[in-house]
């Protein structure tokens, strides 16, 4: 290994009694339950005004006229922005160059033209002195359209399929080939071909997208923004406004969930900023729940066809994957489903292609485990089919095809504890008692089924910085511009800082969510825990280096004239490696030197950048582990029991076991919550989540949480979650892989596989609603 950094393991080995890993309560819990935690639409600023978006009824056409007279006459209305008067921007995402420079998720900014490209596209922004007045006035704006017939989806007869060279904004190649999969499939003694359908899903975090914009001066802006990345928002806004980066400050102290939809800067943010400019006062704008369905992206509607070739004893010989999905009029976005299909099993050949069709929808975007979630549905159901066809246990078929090295590039894994996950999960679930035959287990009127699936998620390449200020009185302030999605970042980073500095967690104040703090990457792609924790650890090392230097030069120190390299620090005590009785506490050292405080900076690298001992390049540079010597992924397994009513087709998940291995687990409680949350997210996608787009008007018909169903408590059983201890020295200084997304991967397949085991019928169309189950049993 060629790392140039110290690692957390070295100074915080087993038995050193730290707090990392312990199930600490949330440090922000009290502020949240007492309403003191301020979210982005809760800042009360002097002169605050309220913005409300008016959105397009139609999905395609042109604005012929827009009459704001009636609305403008309403009391309290201050301004109405439309495409006719939006203050000019230095750059828009409307051309490829602008889109790239901004880092925009969507190659079109509403209110910059009279064209309507999708239903729900903002056409006006009304600003008033109260929210209620703005809401009312927005209904009075009269818009006349020249309506055209929209293209609804890739299934629309008018839609034209095309073959993109790259998908996911250029991050993933549109074609992948390893060996000759077509030949191998043709020659395979066992051939399975299946098509999988995935409905449109929406993220629907509890907190909607929200912006409060304040122009502090003509060229200086502060934005309180509901975003997973303050830095990315800062870059997007400063680029569009033509301002130097440092003139834009973005603050996100608390976030009520994101799931990917807050991973980029969407139109409402810059429109609110422009509104604030126009009225010369701060403007607050919060998307309504219906606007959340057309304001911040979605998971696209998609079909996948998977061909699987195998030998008679169940060894994979070929995998061929084709995905067809809907994209917007401007962007080639498709979730990279093929990645996990290529990676999960030791299969000698692989081929994948993507087909897209442009339709009158906004651009889809990352949605928790983008690609891995729907991709795992396809591969993990097909593996189940293979198991049943050959009469092999579904767990056994996965072990038979276990990938001891990364099949995509032949590299060794940095760590992989999937076998342990399988074994522990099977034990907790009681898998060995499974009835090998499907459709054979009855309990009263119900059919009972067991299913399982594998989970995996890559360690993306990223880096971030943190600052530690350690005070001589034993307190510390630790800062980084990361965000806490509500998942526990505040808490786990407090734990990491405490152990790295050898002080108690209640002596640490951890601050995040502000571009004035050191830069951290977007909290997305499961990179936050690994990058941020490592950067804090490295910043602490910087402090210790400085203090070591001080000690060895201080004639009053027991370490006077020792070699810096011979000094180690444990629990805040600097001492000689060879004779630990020789040393002193940092407080004693600092007090003697009359230092009030000392600062350290650290750069935490995550993924390949860490392994090769160099900076990983710009933040969010994507998955690049091919540059290092190892392939880096987390793995896990889900086990599920369902109870199916064979008469009317209702399905309830009655038991759930998830076991994951994802490097170091920073907090047993928040980590468990993450896995539970991700699994429930997956159960929602499996059984009920679907946004319906009208087949003629290309507008959603269920854009509300009343009709877009997500699981309620009654849908979810008690869940068993465990982690396999994993010590991975290649990932980052902390050995943390991240768990935000792996928790969801494989979930829908585990549910579908359990339904198959219950009924003997395979349903390949998500969500698996009662009507589909009932119909499957009728034939």
């Amino acid at each position, binding site marked *: 290994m060629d790392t140039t950094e110290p690692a957390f393991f070295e100074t915080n080995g087993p038995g050193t009694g730290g707090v990392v890993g312990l199930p600490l309560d949330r440090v922000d819990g009290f502020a949240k339950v007492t309403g003191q935690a301020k979210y982005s639409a809760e800042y009360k600023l002097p002169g605050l005004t309220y913005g409300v978006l008016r959105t397009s009824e139609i999905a395609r056409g042109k604005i012929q006229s827009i009459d704001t007279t009636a609305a403008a006459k309403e009391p309290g209305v201050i301004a109405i922005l439309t495409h006719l008067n939006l203050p000019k921007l230095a750059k828009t995402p409307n051309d490829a160059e602008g889109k790239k420079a901004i880092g925009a998720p969507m190659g079109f900014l509403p209110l910059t033209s009279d064209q309507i490209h999708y239903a729900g596209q903002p056409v006006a922004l009304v600003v008033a002195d109260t929210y209620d007045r703005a*809401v009312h006035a927005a209904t009075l704006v009269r818009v006349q359209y020249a309506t055209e017939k929209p293209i609804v989806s890739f299934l629309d007869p008018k839609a034209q399929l095309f073959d993109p060279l790259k998908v996911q904004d250029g991050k993933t190649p549109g074609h992948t080939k390893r060996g000759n999969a077509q030949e191998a499939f043709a020659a395979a003694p066992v051939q399975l071909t299946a098509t999988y359908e995935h409905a449109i899903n929406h993220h629907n975090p509890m907190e909607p997208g929200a912006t409060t914009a304040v122009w502090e001066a003509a060229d200086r802006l502060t934005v309180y923004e509901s975003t997973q990345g303050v830095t990315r928002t800062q870059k997007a806004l400063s680029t569009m406004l033509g301002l130097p980066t440092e003139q834009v400050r973005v603050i996100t102290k608390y976030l009520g969930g994101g799931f990917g939809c807050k991973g980029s800067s969407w139109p409402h943010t810059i429109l609110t900023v422009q509104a604030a400019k126009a009225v010369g006062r701060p403007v607050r704008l919060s998307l309504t729940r219906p606007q959340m369905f057309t304001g911040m992206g979605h998971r696209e509607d998609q079909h996948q066809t998977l061909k699987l070739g195998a030998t008679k004893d169940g060894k994979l010989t070929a995998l061929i994957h084709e995905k067809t999905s809907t994209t917007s009029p401007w962007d080639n976005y498709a979730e990279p489903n093929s990645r996990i299909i290529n990676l999960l099993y030791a299969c000698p050949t692989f081929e994948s292609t993507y087909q897209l069709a442009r339709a009158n929808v906004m651009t889809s975007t990352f949605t928790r485990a983008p690609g891995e979630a729907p991709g795992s549905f396809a591969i993990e159901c097909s593996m189940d089919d293979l198991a049943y066809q050959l009469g092999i246990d579904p767990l056994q078929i996965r072990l038979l095809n276990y990938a001891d090295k990364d099949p995509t590039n032949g590299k060794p894994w940095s760590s992989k504890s999937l076998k342990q996950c399988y074994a522990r999960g099977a034990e907790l679930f009681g898998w060995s008692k499974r009835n090998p035959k499907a459709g054979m287990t009855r309990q009263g009127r119900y059919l009972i089924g067991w299913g399982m699936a594998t989970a995996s998620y890559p360690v993306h390449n990223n880096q971030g910085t943190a600052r530690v200020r350690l005070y001589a009185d034993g307190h510390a302030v630790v800062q980084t511009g990361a965000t806490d999605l509500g998942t526990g970042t505040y808490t786990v980073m407090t734990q990491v800082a405490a152990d790295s500095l050898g002080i108690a967690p209640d002596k640490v104040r951890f601050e995040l969510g502000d571009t004035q703090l050191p830069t951290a990457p977007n909290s997305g792609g499961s990179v936050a825990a690994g990058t941020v924790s490592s950067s804090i650890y490295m910043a602490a090392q910087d402090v210790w280096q400085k203090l070591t230097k001080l000690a060895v030069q201080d004639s009053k120190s027991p370490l006077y004239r020792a070699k810096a390299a011979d000094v180690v620090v444990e629990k805040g005590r600097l001492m000689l490696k060879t004779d630990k009785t020789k040393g002193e506490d940092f407080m004693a050292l600092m007090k003697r030197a009359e230092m009030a405080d000392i600062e350290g900076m650290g750069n935490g690298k995550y993924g390949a950048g860490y392994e090769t001992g160099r900076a990983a390049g710009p933040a969010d540079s994507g998955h690049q582990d091919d540059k290092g010597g190892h392939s880096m992924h987390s793995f896990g397994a889900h086990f599920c029991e369902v109870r199916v009513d064979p008469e009317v087709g209702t399905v309830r998940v009655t038991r759930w076991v998830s076991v994951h291995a994802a490097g170091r687990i920073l907090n047993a409680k928040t980590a468990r919550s993450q896995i539970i949350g991700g699994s429930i997210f997956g159960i929602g996608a499996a059984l009920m989540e679907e946004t319906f787009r009208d087949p003629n008007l290309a507008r959603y018909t269920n854009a509300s949480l009343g009709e877009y169903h997500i699981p309620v408590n*009654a849908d979810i059983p008690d869940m068993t979650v465990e982690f396999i201890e994993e010590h991975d020295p290649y990932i980052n200084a902390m050995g943390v892989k991240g768990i935000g997304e792996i928790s969801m991967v494989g979930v829908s397949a585990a549910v579908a596989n359990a339904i198959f085991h219950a009924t003997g019928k395979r349903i390949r169309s998500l969500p698996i609603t009662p009507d589909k189950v009932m119909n499957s049993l009728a034939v």
Partner: protein
Amino acid sequence: MNNFSYTPAATAKEAIGIRKDKKDAAYIAGGTTLLDLMKANVEQHPQLVDINMLPFKGIQETTDGLRIGSMERMSDVGENALVVQQYPVISEALLLSASPQLRNMASIGGNLLQRTRCGYFRDPAFPCNKRNPGSGCPAQQGDNRNLAILGTSEACIATNPGDLAVALVALDAVVTLENAKGKQRRVPLLDFHLLPGTTPQRETVIEPDELIVAVTVPAAAHARKSHYVKVRDRASYAFALVSAAVGLDVQGGQIRSARIALGGVGTKPWRAQEAEKLLIGKPATEENFRAAAAAAVRGAQPREHNRFKVEMVQKTVVQALQELMA
């Protein structure tokens, strides 16, 4: 949502008086239907008249049955001992509705006047004959999974989404209305809701100057032995895909009277009287239940996405009857 004024009314007369003068005003009870529709701009009311103070209260046993004041809350009625014991189908239908929070707010009167969950109706950007007469019905060729298969028309196929009304219509409930002059009239619930026909915007027989005062339910053996089964997309807090309210009076192995009503499938709470007739004088067997269920959906007109309801509701009727006899 539009700006509106708010007036609490102390008496029925006062409430009706305001509404009479201002046709666009609306009564507000729990507000769980009304405010949703106003927020979505489906309904615009310049004035809301709060009727929560009106004395339309009480869950009482009368000489011939049960009387529920229209201002009683769903949760109170659902948990009332008299209702639980003598009219279980009503209690079950209520407690399988909505969520505890909504049931604590929502009134019985408001419940009977709740409006369809048709996604086109609830979004003014769409054409919809019910919301905007003559504009068309995109649901016929679109998202009709949750819509009706019985009582539909060319103009509208919207489901009446409520659960309570299905239970009540099974038990021959009667709605008491009061008008501006303080005059009361009694309308059987069966006739209270209207079929869409060519005027889907007219949903009930209630006149603008009328208030719902109470609902009465005759006591009966088939009410004491009654049951509600609801099938939905998730375990709780969802409207019915299909539901069945059933009641039986079985003596000496023979069915003396039967009540069957269907939810989630009709443009109004759907009483299946033909199916009931088939059961009279017959033993309570699965075979007879199946025949009755088949009769209940005769004439159903499913669309592309709600075809499954034809079979699902029959199975639900059979299940409800079987569970009743178990």
